């Protein structure tokens, strides 16, 4: 009985999904989907008192999963839409992907995004790991505040303060030394490092917290210098956490919009900025195409992370 109800729910979700392709029939489809949903709920209710909570858990969870994935599916499917307007489904076409690969701006933006992400995540991982170890070993008072606040603050505040800093302090100061400094790739990388350090530090520290400290003491008693302790004992143990942190920093950097928006100046294009321009003005399904490809890339990275460091991903504060 319960299974039937859940199956009915799946059909309802399919109907709701189909709304967006139904053209004029969309409201009818919407109604049908909602009715089926209600029916599924009623059916589940009738199934008896036993394991009711489990049923509701599954019922709502399926809906939440659907909620998470339907918009993405629509973006991907519409990337094959044979219409410039992106309003209704017209027909199948690969033209937007072709357009994408000929779009110099987009390709440059993609290249920039990846370069920035690699650079920023590399440095952020190093600094973040150091911070994580320092916080675990030495329990400093100011460092945790400095490390965690950028993570907790709304991004716009970070972006804005860095903008002012780069332009009203860094630029004149460096000009005095004869260096022309402008917003660009460098400033974006620096900004990304600032907010990524926190994530890496959280993961590394959580990993250290779950470990037995006596192993470090044993190493010290045996006469190992701090560097050797780190290289031979600490690093291998926290490596999954470090890698997870690096991948996290990478994903955050590729995806970042707000902070990049303020610190990129103008000449630097990144994918999110490019998409923003496209969404605001020249909206063609090319945006969908680039999004689909981005999703594929990040999916590949997350799967790689899951394989390399399966339990590191779960060690959240």
């Amino acid at each position, binding site marked *: 009985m319960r299974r039937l109800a859940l199956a009915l729910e799946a059909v309802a979700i399919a109907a709701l999904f189909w709304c967006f392709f139904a053209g004029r029939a969309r409201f009818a489809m919407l109604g049908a989907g909602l009715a089926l949903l209600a029916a599924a709920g009623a059916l589940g209710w009738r199934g008896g008192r036993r394991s009711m909570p489990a049923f509701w858990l599954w019922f709502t969870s399926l809906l939440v999963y659907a909620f998470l994935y339907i918009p993405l599916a629509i973006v991907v499917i519409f990337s094959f839409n044979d219409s*410039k307007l992106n309003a209704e489904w017209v027909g199948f076409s690969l033209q937007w992907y072709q357009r994408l690969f000929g779009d110099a701006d987009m390709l440059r933006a993609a290249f920039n995004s990846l*370069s920035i992400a690699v*650079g920023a995540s590399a440095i952020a991982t190093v600094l973040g790991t150091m911070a994580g170890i320092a916080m675990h070993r030495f329990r400093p008072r100011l460092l945790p505040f400095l490390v965690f606040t950028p993570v907790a603050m709304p991004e716009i505040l970070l972006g804005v303060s860095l903008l002012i800093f780069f332009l009203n302090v860094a630029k004149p100061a460096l000009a005095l030394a004869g260096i022309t400094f402008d*917003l660009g790739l460098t400033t974006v990388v620096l900004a990304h490092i600032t907010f990524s350090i926190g994530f890496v530090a959280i993961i590394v520290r959580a990993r250290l917290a779950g470990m037995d400290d006596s192993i470090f003491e044993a190493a010290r008693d045996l006469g190992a210098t701090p560097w050797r302790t780190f290289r031979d004992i600490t690093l291998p143990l926290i490596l999954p956490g470090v890698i997870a942190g690096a991948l996290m920093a990478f994903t955050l950097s590729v995806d970042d919009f707000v902070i990049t928006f303020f610190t990129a*100046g103008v*000449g630097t294009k990144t994918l999110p900025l490019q998409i923003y321009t496209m*969404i*605001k003005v020249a909206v063609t399904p090319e945006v969908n195409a680039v999004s689909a490809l981005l999703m594929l890339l990040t999916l590949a990275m997350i799967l790689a992370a899951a394989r390399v460091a399966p339990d590191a991903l779960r060690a959240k504060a």
Partner: protein
Amino acid sequence: MRAVLWALLLATVPGLAAAQDVLRLFNWNNYITEDSVQRFERGCGCSLEQDYYSDNEEMLAKLAAGASGYDLLVPTGNAVQALIASNQLRPLDHAQIPNLSNIKPEFLNQWFDPGNRYSVPYAYSLTILGYNIEKMKAFEIPVDTWAAIFEPRYLERVKGKVTVLDSQRELFAAALIYLGYSANETSEGRLRAARDLILRAKPYWAAFNAGSYFKELAIGNIWLAHGYSNDFYTAQQDAHGAARPFTIGFTTPKEGAVFALDNLVMHKTGRRPDLAYKFIDYWLQGRASAEITNLIGAGNPNRVAMQWVRPEIAENRNIFPDAARFRRLQSLRDYDPRTRRLLNRLWVEVKVR
């Protein structure tokens, strides 16, 4: 694993080895065709790199925020005024741009740059009303007046289907013009009157939108919009191309409208003034500007270019206004800081109340 990381690292280095002859243009979105770019690149043996903005304020703000290295910008008149006053432009050597004589005389010697010492005209647009013809007829809304977006008695028929520009100056200009004042009004009382007019109409509007309104118009989600003539032309073409069951039209309101002449200027931080001159002269030849006119319906100040402009566009009085209409058009001039701050406060009220 390590090899992969090293490869990735090395891959980022070649970013420095870019093309040597690069001209950097900071332009409006969609304001030059692919063909024009390619022809120019072939002709000069260089490459053209573009960055985009969708609003003068955005461009000025980004320049003030330190963007540099642009050889050419395409600011509107009041932005040229601001750029000249803040000493950011290179004076133009007219000897290097002989095709300047192609420009129609009424577009030279503008108020912001007498003698064209710093700028040459690029293209122009009008800020007018665009609409779904069938819907406006069905609801009997007069589209030749700003009353269409400011009067509740018309708005209530199309509530939630109207958008206005998300631009302080443009929206207040439309309100001021409708009230019979100058678009560059600085009197506090009159600006407040404009604010009240806007607030009275606001509940009927769907959104303040500067970017996607013409797309929504072409799709049919919006029926009436305050926007730019070239955007409306694009919407008209898109709707037709997508075989929508309606037609998009656009009209210049009889009370007047804002006229925006965009200009090519050379920024002081540009590194290739030689290439910049080549581009300016190329644009003044007329083929390229005619192409963008044909693509998006941008107004063309170039006499010679008219031979390549499609007749139906050349005859459209909302894109190429005749003398009578021209008299009713006004250009926006930059405000002094005090009025600007007043307008900022009024704008917050417009957005929040």
